[in-house]
C-alpha cells in the first residue's frame, strides 16, 4: 500500500517537472488565418494538453470565439505568471486561462467577457461530511499552490489555517487522495476538473460552498476595444446558441458540478 502511494507521489512529482519543462516557443503575433491563443496546458476540465490535442472549457470557448472571428486557433501555453507579458508583447492575441478579471490586471491588459463566474471552493474526499465550507476548517490540513490568490485568500479568511503549499495542484490532489490532507482549495472549476479525472472519479467531491467570486475573462492587449467587442459578440452567440451550456456540461459536468449563480454571465462593457 505504502509502496503504491510512494509511487503515486513520485509520479506526481515527475508530472510537475514535465509540466514546467515544456515551455512555449513564442513568436510574432498571429497574422493571416491563424490566431495565437494562450491557454493553460495543465488544468483538467479547463485547459489540458492531451497528446497533440487540447481539451477543456477554456479550449472549447476559445475554439468557438476563434471560429466566430474567422480564424484557426493556435494554442500556446500561458502560465499564470506570464499572461500579462504574453499579451503586451503580442506573443498571443487572446488568453483563455482561468484569467480572473481584477482591477489590478486591468492596468496592464484589457478583458472581454466574463464567460464564466467561478468561486473559491474546497475539494474533499467523497466520504467526508464534516467540511462544509471555510467555517469548518479548524484543525484541518489544507493544500493550495504557492503564492496563488486562493492560498492568500484562505489565509485571510481562516487565520492560522494549517496550509501546505505545493508548486502545482496535481501534488495537492495526490496528497488529498492518499488521505493525508483534508481539503484542497482553489476555484471550483479547477476542483471540478480534477474530480472529473478518470483516476479520481467518485473519490473526490467539490463542497459547493463558494466564498469568493472569480470572473473569468478573455485577456487581450490593453485598449483593443474593437477586438474586445468582437469577442463579446462571439461569447453572447455561444451562450444564446446553447453551445456554452454544452461545453460546460461536457468538461465540468462529469463530477456532478453545476455552475454557480450568475452563470452564464453577461459581458462587461469594453473599454
Amino acid at each position, binding site marked *: 500500500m505504502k509502496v503504491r502511494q510512494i509511487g503515486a507521489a513520485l509520479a*506526481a*512529482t515527475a508530472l510537475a517537472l514535465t509540466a514546467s519543462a515544456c515551455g512555449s516557443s513564442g513568436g510574432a503575433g498571429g497574422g493571416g488565418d491563424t490566431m495565437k491563443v494562450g491557454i493553460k496546458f495543465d488544468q483538467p476540465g479547463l485547459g489540458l494538453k492531451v497528446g497533440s490535442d487540447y481539451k477543456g472549457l477554456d479550449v472549447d470557448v476559445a475554439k468557438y470565439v476563434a471560429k466566430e472571428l474567422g480564424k484557426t486557433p493556435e494554442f500556446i501555453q500561458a502560465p499564470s505568471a*506570464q499572461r500579462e507579458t504574453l499579451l503586451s508583447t503580442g506573443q498571443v492575441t487572446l488568453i483563455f486561462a482561468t484569467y480572473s478579471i481584477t482591477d489590478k490586471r486591468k492596468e496592464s491588459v484589457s478583458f472581454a467577457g466574463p464567460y464564466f463566474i467561478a468561486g473559491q471552493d474546497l475539494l474533499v474526499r467523497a466520504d467526508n461530511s464534516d467540511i462544509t465550507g471555510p467555517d469548518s476548517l479548524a484543525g484541518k490540513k489544507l493544500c493550495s499552490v504557492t503564492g496563488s490568490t486562493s492560498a492568500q485568500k484562505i489565509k485571510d479568511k481562516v487565520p492560522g489555517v494549517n496550509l501546505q503549499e505545493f508548486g502545482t495542484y496535481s501534488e495537492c490532489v495526490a496528497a488529498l487522495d*492518499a488521505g493525508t490532507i483534508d481539503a484542497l482549495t482553489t476555484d471550483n472549476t479547477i476542483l471540478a476538473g480534477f474530480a472529473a479525472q478518470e483516476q479520481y472519479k467518485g473519490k473526490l467531491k467539490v463542497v459547493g460552498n463558494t466564498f469568493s467570486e472569480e470572473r473569468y475573462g478573455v485577456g487581450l492587449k490593453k485598449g483593443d476595444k474593437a477586438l474586445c467587442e468582437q469577442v463579446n459578440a462571439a461569447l453572447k452567440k455561444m451562450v444564446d446558441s446553447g453551445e456554452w451550456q454544452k461545453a460546460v456540461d461536457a468538461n465540468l459536468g462529469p463530477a456532478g458540478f453545476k455552475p454557480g449563480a450568475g452563470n452564464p454571465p453577461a459581458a462587461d462593457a469594453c473599454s
Partner: protein
Amino acid sequence: MGDILSNYNVLGAFWVTIQLSVLAAIGSLLIGTVVAIMRVSPVAVLRGLGTAYVNIIRNTPLTLLMVFSVLGLSLLLGLQISEQASTNAYWWAVIMLSVYHAAFVCEALRSGVNTIPAGQAEAARSIGLTFAQSLREVLLPQAFRGAIAPLGSTLIALIKNTTVAALILGATEAAGTLSKITENEGAQLPIFFLFALGFVLLTLPLGVLFTSMSQRLAVKR
C-alpha cells in the same frame, strides 16, 4: 515599485532565504564531511556506501527531492516534523538542501584530500596514528584548506538553490514571495531585477571572500 515594497515583506523573505542558507550550509558541511570520511576510509563497505550516496543524491534533481520530502515522506509515510504544515515544510526544506549539497561538499573535500601527497598519510600511519587520528591531525585540516574554493562554489549554489524550496514552502522565502507578487500585481521587470539583485548581494561578497581565502589559506607546497 514603492507600494509593492510596502505591501510585501521582501526583506522578511530574504531573511528566510538567509536562514535556510545558513542552516543548510551547516547541515551539508556536517553530512558532507561524514560522507567524505567514508569515501576515504580503509573500509570497503563504507567507501561503497559513500560512493552510492554521492552518486544517487548528486544525480537526483533537487526539485524532486523537495517535493518527495513533503509529499512522499511527510504526508504519505507520516514522517512529520511538526503538526503545522508550514513549520514541517520549512524543516524538510532545510534537511533536503543539506542532504543534496552534502554530496557536493563531500566531493569538494575529497578533492582537498587528494591534494595531500600520499606520503603524508603513510607517514601518519607509520608513526602509529590511528585512521581517526591521522584524519584529525593531518588530512582534514589540509583538506579543508585545499577545498576552500570548491566549498565556496557549493555554498553559492546552495544559496541560489534555496529558491527551489518555494515548491513546498509557499510564499515565505524570496522565490515564493516573487511568485506571490507576480500573481497579484502582474509580472514586472523591476521587481524581478530587485530579487535578482538581492541574490547578487548575498552571493557576490561570498565569492570574493572565498577566492581571497583560498589564496591565503592554500597549503604551500
